[in-house]
């Protein structure tokens, strides 16, 4: 095996490595910038057709349906006693989960200097911000009197009333707000050099737009130093925020006195679950971006899918570990209601969902991603990513409405049947994609400077007959 590989490398040598690795395949800066600009400017009629369709879906699914629900009350949704929480909360957790991938890729991989991250940190970061927006929508939709949601905010008032900081929901609000703000900042900082680049290559309203966004960045040494420092601080600081957010989301459930929820392992379990779905979403986005946007085949290459695929495999294994761990702890706990619930998960009317979840989240990733060739093929990893997302959505569905169906009062057990949640959920999805499409044509989706920086640092050196990739520290 090893011999074969050596042989292959010898045969193709340098040429092969360059073709494979973006970092070793530099283009002139001007050309690369132009490629990114071009990708931003190119819109086909298909783009506008999809854009229009999504806008219509958003308008109907999200805003109109929500208006109906506000006017009529939550009765138009499927929530009932005992499943007081339904798909709204499923979607909230799901979108927060999606949002985790961005931070994971751009912050953790940046901190650990994983070089393959360079072309798609922005694409992932955008998902964080837009995912959080959808999570926010979902959680506000869920409220019975959303027009009073500002009462969750601490603000001085005559009535001597404050939000209840005992409530996991209050922590949630704080955590999500913090995460949204910091991730937006963190999205924005690395964007500055790129919009500055775009500003210099644009005219008209785009020029004005980029001028505002670029904050007068000119690329002096001092500016770069400040920017690097700021990015470094944020990269480190946002990691605990990221972990805390989903841990806190998990406390919504873990801190409740309900069978199936009251589990100590929910924190890390949720974080890993979030990464699982987030990675799946990132790989889907990359596949779509690569397939639909101009010049992207240069930036996003099979090596990236391969690298993310590896991560996905590891995360899938970790998720399986936590799932198993949680299951064992719950099962051995011996509480009769919990046992009833576990049984209900598997054998109840929605038992199929439980099995589909395991197949999509564990069986399929394990079966596919171990193979380097398969995990380098965009459409395969796209499918796996899609299935993982479906599986993870099912996981949240099982944890929320299905688990809520079973409680300590058997007289009240009842299944949940979604109502207006479905258009609303589709609305958030459409809005997410809509925002993403808009962003892809408004800001450079590829952090050009980061790619160029990486390419500058990478070199191919020959030691005897071996060709070796070397990376020099830039800072």
């Amino acid at each position, binding site marked *: 095996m090893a011999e074969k590989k050596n042989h292959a490398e010898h045969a193709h040598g340098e040429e092969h490595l360059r073709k494979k690795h973006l970092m070793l395949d530099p283009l002139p800066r001007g050309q690369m910038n132009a490629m990114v600009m071009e990708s931003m400017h190119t819109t086909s009629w298909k783009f506008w057709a999809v854009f229009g369709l999504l806008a219509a879906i958003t308008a109907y699914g999200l805003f109109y349906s929500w208006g109906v629900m506000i006017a009529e009350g939550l009765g138009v949704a499927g929530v009932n006693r005992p499943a007081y929480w339904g798909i709204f909360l499923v979607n909230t957790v799901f979108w927060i989960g999606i949002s985790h991938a961005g931070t994971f890729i751009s912050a953790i991989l940046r901190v650990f200097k994983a070089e393959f991250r360079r072309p798609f940190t922005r694409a992932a970061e955008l998902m964080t911000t837009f995912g959080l927006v959808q999570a926010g929508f979902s959680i506000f939709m869920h409220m019975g009197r959303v027009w009073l949601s500002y009462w969750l905010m601490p603000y001085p008032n*005559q*009535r*001597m009333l404050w939000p209840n900081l005992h409530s996991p929901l209050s922590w949630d609000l704080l955590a999500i707000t913090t995460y949204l703000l910091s991730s937006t900042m963190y999205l924005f900082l690395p964007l500055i050099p790129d919009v500055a680049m775009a500003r210099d290559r644009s005219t008209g309203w785009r020029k*004005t737009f980029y001028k505002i966004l670029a904050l007068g960045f000119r690329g002096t040494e001092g500016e770069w130093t400040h920017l690097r420092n700021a990015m470094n601080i944020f990269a480190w600081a946002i990691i605990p925020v990221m972990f805390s957010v989903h841990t806190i989301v998990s406390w919504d459930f873990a801190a409740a006195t309900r069978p199936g929820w009251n589990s100590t392992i929910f924190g890390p379990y949720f974080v890993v679950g979030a990464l699982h779905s987030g990675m799946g979403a990132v790989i889907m986005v990359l596949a779509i971006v690569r397939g639909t946007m101009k010049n992207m085949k240069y930036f996003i290459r099979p090596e990236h899918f391969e690298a993310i695929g590896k991560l996905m495999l590891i995360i899938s294994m970790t998720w399986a570990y936590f799932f198993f761990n949680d299951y064992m702890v719950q099962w051995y706990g011996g509480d009769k209601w919990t046992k009833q619930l576990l049984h209900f998960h598997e054998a109840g009317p929605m038992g199929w969902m439980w099995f589909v979840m395991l197949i999509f989240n564990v069986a399929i990733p394990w079966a596919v991603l171990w193979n380097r060739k398969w995990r380098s093929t965009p459409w395969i990893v796209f499918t796996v990513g899609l299935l993982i997302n479906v599986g993870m959505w099912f996981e949240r569905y099982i944890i929320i409405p299905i688990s809520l169906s079973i409680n300590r009062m058997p007289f009240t057990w009842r299944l949940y049947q979604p109502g207006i949640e479905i258009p609303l959920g589709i609305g958030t999805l459409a809005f997410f994609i809509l925002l993403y499409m808009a962003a892809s044509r408004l800001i450079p989706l590829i952090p050009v400077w980061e790619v160029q920086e990486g390419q500058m640092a990478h070199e191919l050196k020959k030691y005897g007959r071996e060709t070796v990739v070397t990376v020099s520290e830039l800072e």
Partner: protein
Amino acid sequence: MFKRLFDWLIQPLGLIAVGIAVLAVFSLAAYGINYTQQPPEQPIQFPHKTHAAFGVQCLYCHPGAAKGPSAGIPAQAKCWACHQQIAKTQTSVLLAPLKQAVESGTPIEWVPVAMVPDFVQFNHRAHVAAGQNCENCHGDMTKVTVAQNPQVFNMGWCLNCHVKSAGDDQEKLVKLSDCGTCHY
């Protein structure tokens, strides 16, 4: 189109227009809030000060205040009991609505001035028993014609007084600041 609008908005004139729009929205809201606090129009411009000057006690017309939750608006019969003996009633233009209402037997539609929302369970009796005078909340009626609220009856105002009157008495404070004292 979008581009032109955007361009226009970021030039100084556009910014001014944005400013004006925002201001307009805020002033409308402010006016709305203010409007809700205005004394509404009454069928009869009832002169509280005149009645108070004659020495009529509050509880004569609003006896419920000492007995139960609602102070009450006096029945027309009560108005008439005095007014029929007052010659001016027959001639005064201002009193014509009363005369007409009594003669035709139609009730006068008063607009309540001092009201708390329906989710507040207010009891006059407890407040009177605790030594509160009418004017502490309703203002000095010897000075006004149509009753008006000297202050907005909102929760902060209620609570402020509740806390003050509890003083250092912890037990009393618990009772007076309990949500369930007024909301159920």
